[in-house]
């Protein structure tokens, strides 16, 4: 079913909306959750929480791109679960992703200033639009979709070392861009 049709079902408050969402995007949401969480029960829970959150959000929210809308919800729910889990239960691959992102933060130990949600996102958008396409896609696949290095190497048909170096350079450039933008990280 097309995304428009699925959204219409949400607006009509039809339970079929969940069925159709699961059919079309269930696997997609599970992949995102699996990249962040390690336990099967957490992944199941995350997927179901995504459907519930979507049901509660639509309406009034009208998603632009349904896949991205659902992916965002899954991502945030999975991140919350990851933070809640003890170190033993956490997904180590995802921990590595968060550790990489620390490289974009000038000094994790400084006193944190206030920032508005979305303020940094617009600078990130500006940065991503300004870089070369392949580097941009690799960055997004790593830090939005949480793909592993091996998955990225296979997807973009390059060695793991090359993937790592592209990510490394892009993170450095992002850090510099955010600092220039006056975002106090």
């Amino acid at each position, binding site marked *: 079913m097309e995304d428009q049709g699925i959204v219409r079902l949400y607006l009509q408050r039809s339970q079929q909306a969940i069925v159709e969402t699961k059919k079309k995007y269930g696997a997609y949401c599970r992949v995102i959750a699996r990249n962040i969480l390690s336990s099967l029960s957490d992944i199941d829970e995350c997927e179901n929480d995504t459907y519930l959150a979507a049901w509660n959000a639509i309406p009034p929210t009208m998603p632009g791109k349904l896949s*991205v809308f659902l992916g965002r919800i899954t991502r945030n729910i999975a991140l919350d679960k990851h933070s809640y889990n003890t170190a033993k239960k956490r997904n180590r691959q995802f921990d590595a992703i968060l550790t990489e992102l620390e490289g974009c933060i000038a000094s994790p130990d400084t006193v944190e200033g206030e920032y508005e949600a979305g303020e940094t996102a617009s600078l990130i958008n500006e940065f*991503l639009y300004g870089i070369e396409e392949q580097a941009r896609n690799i960055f*997004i696949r790593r830090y939005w979709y949480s793909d592993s290095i091996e998955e990225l190497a296979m*997807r973009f048909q390059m060695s793991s070392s090359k993937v790592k170096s592209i990510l490394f350079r892009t993170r*450095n450039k992002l850090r510099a861009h955010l600092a220039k933008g006056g*975002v106090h990280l």
Partner: protein
Amino acid sequence: MKREELYREIGLMDEDLIEAAGSSGAEKRKKGFSKKWVALVACLVLYSSTASALLATEYYKNQNAEPYIRYLRAEDMELLPAPKYDGMKFLQALKSDNEEHVYVAINRLVEGFNDPSLRAKALNKLQPFAGNENPKIADAAAFAIDILSQSYRSPYIVKLADGSMLFTLFNHYSDYGSQNVLWRIKDNKLEEYSSFSAPSMYITEMIPSPDKRLVAVVTCSNKSEFVQIINVEAGRTSPELIESARVKYGAEQEIDTWIRPDYENYSDASNIVWKDNDTLEFEGSLAYQDTEIIENVSVTYQFSSKVMEVTKLN
């Protein structure tokens, strides 16, 4: 900001970007060999067996002669004479339908600078390309015209205190930078001043000192960056500064530091400036242990005394 917060902020990026990345790349690498690779390998096998037979014949013919090779040049290794520059070939290539060939030809025509007749012909043929709708071709043509007409107004040219000029060709042909060859015009004569080898595959920047006696040359691969200072007039070059800083700092901080056999350093430099006519300063991201450790440092290097200081950045 915590790292989890940054991760959430990344989640808010533009939907178009997320969607584009979702379908980027290939899902899976195809298994098995494609037919074209089989054909290529077959051709290589045929070529090498023919070449071996010919070489063996030559060897037996000359078996009685005593060979003496003083120095192995590239053409000696290829058993071919060194290719000579053929400006006419590149003039002809300007007529090609293939934009890549045209782009290469435009850049290579600059090498005909020392031949006045070729220079005049090239200038004449290059003029229409300065307005080409392909920006890469237009830029290349504008630069070639600037050099061949001896105007020397382009910002890509570094003018030195001794009156000579340094530049690169194939400027920014790649996202990474320009061709890794430095050209120099001195006393109205063009020469290839120096070239860099792997991993310095691209020249990204040339920064002259305030008095224009020294020039810092920044090169890179797709993984690493490198910085050297050259005194062109005296023909002296500093050691490579990023690797030097990496080794020095690693020793001071007792970090396990190794130099890779491919000389990649996975490190980079930014904010490269001349503090004075002799001292270069930059901020380095120095990588150790396969990028598990990244040290952000400030590096200063005095060219004349060869003194380097590396301090951790706050």
